[in-house]
């Protein structure tokens, strides 16, 4: 698939004929410098954007021609996001932040939702911080809340964009081990990073430069 912005002379080709298959249960790191197209790739993988040409299929279903509203539903059900900036809502508690995707997914009743959110927070080791607001948590804890929020809908793919970019190294290590655990539990994990140390964690490393995949290496298990 390809993605370009603008048109004519001002056209920028962010992705050029990228062909990538991610298997269920894969642990993938997409690496590249800023401007390499890795963010654009992540947006398309996360259904935040659609390719200009070519197609993108999740579990066999083509999602490259969907409407805004349909894409929102795909994001809700199939994709879990973890952002560099955490992007938690600051005024509501950790557990309510984690509940948000379930609310958008229309899950009822409230008690069941709350239970799922608490389970997700337990996976990331924050079962004793349920009612804390993000501002009362450390950066590492906030990012763990974000992981819980990404996992709570039981998505097909966990997409993390520079998840350790805003964390101190000890917190980063701790966080990466959570990704390992999540992967070990059988979930597909895609890390987008420019940090080789982070990428080394993954089983498969994809390098991207100037909108093209330049290498795709499977680390021996």
């Amino acid at each position: 698939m390809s993605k370009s912005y603008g048109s004519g002379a001002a056209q920028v080709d962010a992705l050029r004929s990228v062909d990538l298959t991610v298997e269920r249960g894969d642990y993938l790191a997409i690496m590249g410098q800023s401007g390499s197209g890795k963010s654009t790739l992540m947006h398309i993988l996360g259904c935040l954007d659609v390719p200009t040409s070519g197609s993108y299929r999740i579990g066999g279903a083509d999602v490259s021609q969907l409407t805004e509203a349909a894409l929102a539903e795909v994001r809700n059900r199939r994709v879990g996001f973890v952002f560099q900036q955490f992007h938690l809502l600051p005024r509501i508690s950790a557990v309510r932040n984690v509940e948000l995707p379930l609310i958008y997914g229309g899950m009822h009743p409230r008690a069941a939702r709350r239970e799922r959110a608490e389970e997700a927070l337990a996976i990331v080791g924050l079962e004793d911080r349920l009612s804390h607001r993000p501002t009362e948590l450390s950066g590492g804890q906030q990012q763990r809340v974000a992981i819980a929020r990404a996992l709570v809908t039981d998505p097909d793919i966990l997409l993390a964009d520079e998840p350790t970019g805003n964390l101190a190294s000890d917190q980063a290590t701790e966080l990466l081990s959570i990704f390992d655990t999540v992967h070990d539990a059988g979930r597909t994990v895609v890390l987008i990073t420019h940090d080789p140390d982070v990428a080394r964690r993954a089983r498969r490393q994809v390098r991207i430069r100037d909108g093209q995949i330049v290498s795709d290496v499977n680390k021996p298990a």
Partner: protein
Amino acid sequence: MSWLELFRGALDSLLERRSRSILTVLGLLIGIAAVILTVGLGEGAQAQVGSAISALGTNMLIVTPGSVSTAGVSGGLGSASTLTLADASALSNATDCPQISQVAPVSQHTASLAAGTNTWTAPVVGTTPSYLAIRDRQVVLGQPFTAGEVQAQAHVALIGTEVVQNLFPSSRTIGRTITINGVPFSVTGELNPAGSSANANEDNLVIIPISVAESLFGSRGPYAQSLSQILLSATGPTTMSAAYQEADSLLLELHQLPTPAAADFTITPQTSLLATASSVSKTMTVLLGGIAAIALLVGGIGVMNIMLVSVSERVQEIGLRKALGATPGVILRQFLIEASLLGLGGGVLGVGLGVGGSLLVPSLLHAPIVISLPAVVGAVVVAVGIGLCFGVYPAARAARLSPIEALRSA
């Protein structure tokens, strides 16, 4: 996403920006309270005018001298004096005018009054006992004068409460003597308090027999034998127009006038007075209400302003919500609900202030305020509607935001 969740989320984000929400609500609140108060004042004035006019007497027709328009030249009410006692007695003839039940000739002049050392000036009405019945006035103390006393030109007087207060501040009135333009009269009765109508103070009044008024005021002015007006009452509310026709044709005949267009008198049904007066106060209500509506509009623009600020402030939050699965429709609804909650808050508090004000204002302004339930419900509905309408544009902007752009702007 359920409406309950949307409301909860909207309430959360309004409370998050508490002081700003309160200020926005304040703008709407003032508009709504202004509308409630001005409409209430208008309705109060209308009700007051209505009750004052119906207090003038039921089924009443007023004949005044002069025509509204005589041969193209407007003479104006009361500009000529063409009504006489003969007209009045002809109108009271039951065979000619079966639908007219009562007739009272009125000769009204302002006169100086005195009792002992107290002096006062008041309108003096010379009339017959029918006057009280037509105008629905009662003698609460003492006795009204009789037709016999009118015939006998008895110097007797009925006085209104304001006259009582000024001439007899602390003593009984019945049987005492007052002078009217220096001529002594015996007070035989006190009138019930009737308040002020649109154009007269009904309590500042002295009533004397018409026969005496003729000689008292007769030598003054060029229209010695003429009357200020003749009051008629119809036999019932349904016979008003029949009574009008009878009076009209009889007076035309008596005055030897060939066509109604040449009439030298004007007959005004009490109902048309009511209509005129209430249309005046309705105009005032519309005017004041219009000004208040502008205040409301400004409040609505305040809502739009604050919602636009809110959208551009929350670009990241909107992007995140979209990434988590919020559809454009959900975002649109969230912002619309926030705007209408601001409207609801402004409406409810505005109604509170308006109703509170309506309890306070009458004692300060001496003006009655009528707050009707439809006005209250309407105000709240309008406030929510304003929030909704002025929220559409900001909400649509929020819904259109691309999640990538929104998340990128860190």
